């Protein structure tokens, strides 16, 4: 059963252009110039109940604009949205009772209050009876392991602890859908992993549908079963995570700095991207050859420095485009 239905959704913004310097500001006052930006162009998709869906794309792709339209913050220009059969455009408040939101870059908590007082405040915002708020706080602080600092003012907490509190605050009213906009932005890898585990646990416990945006591929890899990739306001891919992994996330980039020159040629599963003698950059197709194998080929004794990374999201997107062209 689909609980989010989006059909032919579009949104444009008029952005004022400003030229540099005194002459520029003079000009922009007398005769402002605008540029129309199509942030979201005619997109359609559906999300089922209990799903954990990832909505990814590079910065400025239209992720945030879409999530803001789904949550009732922005009015769409064209198209239909139904979230839990509610139209965010007309019934913002009704919708708000039923969804939770966490915006990684914007804090909703009062920093001088303790997480506990904050949760009570959010309980009051959602008109939840006192006794139910108490039991909910207990339940959630156990699940998210907040007991240690639930009575410490938020301003004294680490970024990771704060995000956990933000998520709990948005769950007080037992929303049916949780929107997470870049929840792990600015966090270190260990904390990121921690947050992911907790989100996963919550999804299992409460069967909450999760709509997650990120520009970090690994966020999604670990969390979601389905992924929608958006670029330039259009949906590029709407597919199962396993498919995406099989086709695009199986490649690793290995960059190595060597003591001695190595002579390496393209082999099955290995593509050389850059070869400057001592500095080497190769792409390993893990379907065909393990990363360990590839390193062995380089002669591990000669490696001064090595860096293994995922293929950047931008490249995955461009390879998706390339494939389409071939087809």
């Amino acid at each position, binding site marked *: 059963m689909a609980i989010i239905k989006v059909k032919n959704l579009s949104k444009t*913004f*008029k*952005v*004022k*252009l*400003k*030229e*540099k310097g005194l002459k520029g500001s003079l000009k922009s*006052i007398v005769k*402002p110039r605008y*540029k129309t930006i199509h*942030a979201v162009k005619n997109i359609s998709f559906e999300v089922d109940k209990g799903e954990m869906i990832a909505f990814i794309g590079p910065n400025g792709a239209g992720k*945030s*604009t879409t999530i*803001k339209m789904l*949550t*009732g*913050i*922005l*009015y769409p220009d064209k198209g239909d949205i139904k979230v839990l059969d509610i139209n965010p455009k007309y019934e*913002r*408040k*009704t919708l*708000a*009772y039923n*969804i939770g*939101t966490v*915006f990684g870059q*914007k804090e*909703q908590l*009062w920093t*001088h*209050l303790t997480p506990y*007082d904050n949760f009570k*405040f959010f309980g*009051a*915002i*959602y*008109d939840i009876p006192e006794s139910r708020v108490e039991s909910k706080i207990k339940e959630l602080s156990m699940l998210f392991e907040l007991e240690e600092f639930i009575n410490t003012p938020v301003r004294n907490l680490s970024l990771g602890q704060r995000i956990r509190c933000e998520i709990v605050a948005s769950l007080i009213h037992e929303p049916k859908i949780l929107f997470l906009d870049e929840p792990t932005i600015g966090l270190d890898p260990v904390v990121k992993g921690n947050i992911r585990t907790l989100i996963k646990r919550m999804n299992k416990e409460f069967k909450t549908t999760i709509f997650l945006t990120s520009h970090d591929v690994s966020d999604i890899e670990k969390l979601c079963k389905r992924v929608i990739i958006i670029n330039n306001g259009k949906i590029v891919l709407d597919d199962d995570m396993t498919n995406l992994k099989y086709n695009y996330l199986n490649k690793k980039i290995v960059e190595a700095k060597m003591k001695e020159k190595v002579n390496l040629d393209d082999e099955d599963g290995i593509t050389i991207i850059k070869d400057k003698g001592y500095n080497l950059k190769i792409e390993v197709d893990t379907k065909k050859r393990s990363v360990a194998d590839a390193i062995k080929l380089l002669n591990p004794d000669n490696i001064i420095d090595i860096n293994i990374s995922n293929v950047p999201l931008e490249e995955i997107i461009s390879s998706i485009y390339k494939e389409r062209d071939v087809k």
Partner: protein
Amino acid sequence: MLTVVKNQCRISFLSIKYALMREMLNKTTFITNVIFMVLNNASFIIQWIVLYSLRNDIGGYTFRQVLLLWGMASGTYGVAHFFFKKAFSLSDIINNGKLDSFLVQPKNVLLSVIVSDVETSALGDMLYGFIMLIIYGITPYTLILYCLFIICGGLILTSISVILSSLSFWFSKTDMIAETGNNLMVNFATYPDGIFKGLVKALLFTFIPVGITTFIPVHVITEFNINLFIIVILVTVIFITLAFLIFFRGLKRYSSSNLMVARI
């Protein structure tokens, strides 16, 4: 419907309470801010002492009435800026996409935003207002009228700021208009209406309704007049209604943080 209103009031009071608690974290700063504002307002008495040494009445006001006028002006300002501080930086909130977190809450957006912070020094303005009322002559009758009028005046000041700031939904760079409007309301409020004539006087009872927020209340407290009293209440209701109508009309054009200026 009634529970909705009750819950909305509850959350607004809670929000003001928490914001006040935040201001009181540093007790010394808090108290200094309040006291300095009282002294600040009091320093202007010198101006009136000099003026009343030249003439016995200025604009038809006695010296005592001028004190009441000051009490009225700082009281209305205090109410508006203490309880509804964010109404006075609403342009900035709209322009920088800071309405987002209020829009995902199941409460009235405008109300939630404007009560989300308090101005400490405005407490000093309110305090000064009551001191002036005491000097003027406090009775249960003047106290009730005074409280009622500063609430009405505060609501009008807030509504004006909301209306002018809401222009930011339609046009850029309108924060200056809101600022000017707010300044006009403050600057004229501390001078007796009798000194103004013609066009300026007409403006003060229409487009710059200082007449409604301060001048009429002073007259009504001095000498009760039921018609003038009703006018103040009526104008307050009209301004509040307009503020909500215009803000929510504009909200449909809200563009979050997407309306940034692109540099080329």
